[in-house]
């Protein structure tokens, strides 16, 4: 019983991290139809900035984390303008190639500036203490990750379901051309959505640094993991990404606990079987 609860708690925390990082990828793929392999790079940039602000400049976590997220958004905006905007209309292959190229440049830049070693992010004391849940000790950090994940999904739901921006975004996802024909400024929606996705990835990268350690090769190492969330959730579906991320978090954690030697193989086996049966994912439309 304890084992099951442990798997549930760790798996859900892990899933929340995956959700935060991957949801932006899912929405931009559903919206712009761009195969973006560089998305993990924004989580890396967020984590690396948080490390640099904390370790080199001595800022506290509560200041460094928001600044790092803002910094990531500031980097993502011009990238969307200059680079991504040009590849929206390209073929799949060109998009893959361009975003791989961008990923390589991100890795090389982080390495050039901060080196190839691990980039730890120091957590504040408030997040390091433990919370007693009765059946197990839980670090406040894990609890915070779960709470932040819930806030993010609630916030995204509110944003998409209750605001004018959300209505326009959903219209653009459903049919880009019609949306722009009836006067929705899809170009600014693209940019805002892209920036939002990059910011969430940075948040996930910073909060998840304990589970997915930050170093220069981060975007390549976890690329498949993030892509799996999007593929299983279904492109463009926020709820799909959420369910998929939690399921993946729990299944991967369970296979680590139960069959540690074969964890990767079991996990990928599940993923391939699932996608062979449902190639469009849980809630995919396109």
């Amino acid at each position, binding site marked *: 019983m304890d084992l099951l609860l442990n798997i549930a708690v760790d798996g859900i925390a892990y899933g929340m991290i995956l959700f935060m990082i991957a949801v932006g990828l899912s929405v931009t*793929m559903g919206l712009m139809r761009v*195969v973006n392999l560089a998305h993990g790079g924004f989580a890396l940039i967020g984590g690396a900035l948080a490390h640099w602000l904390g370790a080199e400049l001595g800022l506290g976590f509560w200041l460094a984390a928001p600044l790092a997220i803002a910094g990531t958004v500031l980097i993502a905006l011009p990238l969307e303008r200059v*680079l991504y905007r*040009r*590849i929206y209309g*390209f073929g*799949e*292959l*060109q998009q*893959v*190639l*361009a975003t*791989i*190229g*961008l*990923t*390589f*440049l991100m*890795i*090389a830049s982080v*390495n*050039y500036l901060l080196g*190839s070693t691990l980039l730890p992010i120091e957590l504040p004391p408030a997040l390091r203490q433990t919370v007693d849940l009765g059946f197990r000790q839980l670090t406040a950090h894990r609890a915070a990750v779960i709470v932040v994940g819930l806030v993010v999904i609630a916030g995204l739901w509110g944003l998409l379901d209750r605001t004018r921006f959300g209505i326009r975004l959903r219209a653009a996802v459903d049919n880009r051309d019609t949306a722009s024909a009836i006067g929705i400024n899809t170009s600014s929606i693209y940019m805002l959505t892209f920036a939002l996705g990059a910011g969430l990835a940075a948040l996930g990268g910073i909060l998840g640094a304990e589970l997915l350690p930050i170093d*220069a090769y981060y975007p*390549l190492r976890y*690329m*498949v993991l993030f*892509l*799996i969330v*999007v*593929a299983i959730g279904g*492109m463009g579906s926020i709820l799909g990404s959420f369910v998929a991320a939690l399921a993946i978090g729990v299944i991967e954690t369970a296979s680590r606990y139960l069959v540690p*030697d*074969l964890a*990767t*193989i079991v996990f*990928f*086996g599940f*993923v*391939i*079987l699932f*996608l*062979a049966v449902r*190639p*469009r*994912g849980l809630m995919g439309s396109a």
Partner: protein
Amino acid sequence: MLRRYGSQYAPAVLMIAVAVAAFFAFPFNLAFLTRILIMIVLVLSLDLVLGYAGIATLGQAAMYGAGAYAAGLFAIHVWADPVAGLLIGALAGAALAALAGLALMRTHGLTLIMLTIAVAQICSEIANRARDITGGADGLRGIRMQPVLGIWEFDFIGRTGYWYAFAVAAVVMVLLAVLVRSPFGLSLRGIHQSPERMLAIGAPVYWRRHAAYTLGGGIAGIAGALTAQITQLVSLETFSFALSAEAMIMLILGGTGRLYGAVIGTVIFMWVHHTAAANDPFNWLFVIGAMVLAVVFFLPTGLISLPPALKRLAKGGRHAGS
């Protein structure tokens, strides 16, 4: 008539001439030249899968690695004959591609790309765990090959290795040239351009794509077997994502859907790699990243489209560059 044949065979003659010239011009770089030849075989396999059949894959290294491990293990435990090893490598690559293809060919786009990467990662993980058989992270060592066809011993300088790799690359090239002109090859192009129409005229799209993926896997397996036999070492790196990505970059750099494009792209990429990478893999990432973006934005159809574009430009026609 003669002119037509002349222009048809000119690239082949030129390639053989370049290979012979390279052998005498760089006698101390034969290991590097051999690696180019092996990569050409791998990129040719990718050209069949991606360039002709239009299957977007970032996991061709899975079949390359399977071929390398199969050929290495076969040489150590069963028979160290190189040509038999090549067949085993091809079988291993084709078998893996056929098995994975059953699931992969049902998917498209991003899901397909992600799953091809995932298959390579699974293979890497299996090779890493099966330490007793594969040597794990230390790599598979102790491969000692018999002479090629019982005549040519593998030597330290790598002369035999070079000509052996060249012969295999040439055979693969000829086979592919025949294959892509066959009705099967034409149906692959048709599927690439419009799967719906090919389905409508009765082509079994799923199984054609599956067959192309399996054949490509077999050729990638041959490339893997070559590297195992010539370098006498197989490491987990043979399954790496970087290898798959680089093979794809080489192909697109040269131009997809044309066999000569695969050769040109590989040679140029490997040469840039050789000169720019030196000892620092991260500086290399800067170069490769910039190179990839330049190709995507300025040469979307690859280097092979450069000469005709320049020719049009030089003629000064009104439609120059279009």
